[in-house]
């Protein structure tokens, strides 16, 4: 099952970046993300799998598709990238793969103590805990960041009333 999912992830990852049609690329990305959720299910970590599906597959991919729908036409095709971009990508690939393999093979992984599905209540209290390993501070910081970026987006998108009057 693991090999099946990994094959799906690998094949569709390659297809995502090689297809010349932008919406197909988004759909292949969707398949990659769903297969990743499948890996989490395989690990018995159902909460993370459901989060993966809601956030990435249901949220981010839908937003990407939405923006493609608004901006691009069906006959539109992406141009091939410039040669120097291809070459630099190839070089970083050749350097990157041995580096990542070396790190993974040399790292000793500690087996997790609990193999049973993680309790939802534990996740909840940990997420909003203020003690050791509590995540309430990062949680609030991210909320402020999101709020700020949302306000910026609205300010940019808002039509200026005075401008309208001049026209």
């Amino acid at each position, binding site marked *: 099952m693991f090999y099946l999912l990994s094959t799906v992830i690998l094949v569709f990852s390659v297809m995502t970046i090689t297809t010349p049609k932008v919406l197909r690329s988004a759909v292949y990305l969707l398949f990659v993300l769903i297969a990743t959720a499948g890996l989490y299910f395989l690990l018995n970590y159902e909460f993370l799998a459901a989060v993966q*599906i809601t956030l990435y597959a249901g*949220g981010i991919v839908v937003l990407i598709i939405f923006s493609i729908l608004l901006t691009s036409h069906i006959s539109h095709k992406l141009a091939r990238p410039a040669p120097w971009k291809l070459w630099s990508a190839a070089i970083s690939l050749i350097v990157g793969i041995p580096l990542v393999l070396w790190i993974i093979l040399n790292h000793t992984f500690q087996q997790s103590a609990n193999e049973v599905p993680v309790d939802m209540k534990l996740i909840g209290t940990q997420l909003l805990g203020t003690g050791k390993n509590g995540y309430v501070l990062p949680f609030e910081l991210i909320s402020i960041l999101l709020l700020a970026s949302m306000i910026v987006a609205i300010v940019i998108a808002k039509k200026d009333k005075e401008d309208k009057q001049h026209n």
Partner: protein
Amino acid sequence: MILEIYSFSSLTEAIDTALNNSMAPWLATLTELVIIGIVFLSFYALLGLFLVYLERKVCAVMQNRIGPNRVGKWGLLQTIADLIKLLMKELIPIKNADQFLFNLAPYIVIAASFMAMAALPFAKGLQAIDLNVGLFYIMAVSSLGVVGILIAGWSSNSKYSLVGAMRSGAQIISYELSVGLSLLSIVIFTGSLQLSDIVASQADGWWIFKGHIPAFFAFVIYLVAGTAEINRGPFDLAEAESELTAGFHTEYSGIKFAFFFLAEYINMFIVAAVAATVFFGGWMPLHIGNWQGFNAVMDYIPSIIWFFGKTFFIIYLIMWFKWTFPRLRIDQLLTLEWKYLLPLNLINTVIIAFIVLMGWYF
């Protein structure tokens, strides 16, 4: 307990042990998966046929007509005849469409509703998979359906389809928030996302009664948002016949059109089934606190009848909506969600959290 008589767990366990004794564990698991798949497929098809028939009959009653009455007794075979007609129709290929995505879209919509169905508890001991994040899982996978709709609209290369898909996307994404929040308010009561726990917590009364007025309020919001989520009237802007021909599935023909149609009805069933499970106790019979005699009498009705009774009652409510209210405009639709439902829902959730903290519920 009498409830045990109607439990399906003895049947499913018997099948499980029989399979495990006769073959290797991995083969037994595979066989079980195949059996469950076949059961769900046939259930899906039969349910789709029946719901379409029901819709036509309910619509006819609302409009003072008789409805289908020629094919079979009371017109019961009408939808089967329709299905045969759809199967034999020509699939018209679209010249300038993106063929791969055009053909893929119906399957994404169907697969999303299938995945959601897997976690529903149909009766005592009759549930394909009992995830510990069951309710969250159903919400997550049912949000995948919108991808299929968006792709269908875009790849058809037609402006009716594109406008329909855009409307549908905006609508589903906005109303998902309200659906999630209203379900969350009941999760606050139960303290668990596992569907079997949610059903078990209603053994002494359903949440719609136990949760006072806020629970009823959450149910009303869920019903409105759920109806919008499945693109049904009065929120059927995505396929408004008078302005968009048929919205995102204008260019589809034959059995591919039928897939969209079927998925829409199954999604209605899922919305109703989730409402029945969360607010009306799922397969749990009507129990009132400590009235032992009354509870025992209610237990004699099998749990599967309770579940389908409640679900079809809610389906009837949704159909009633559709044939009673006029269609909303897109700006009215978004105003309703963002300016009324969402703030009210947030306030309602806070009130429920307060009630739970103070222990003011039964």
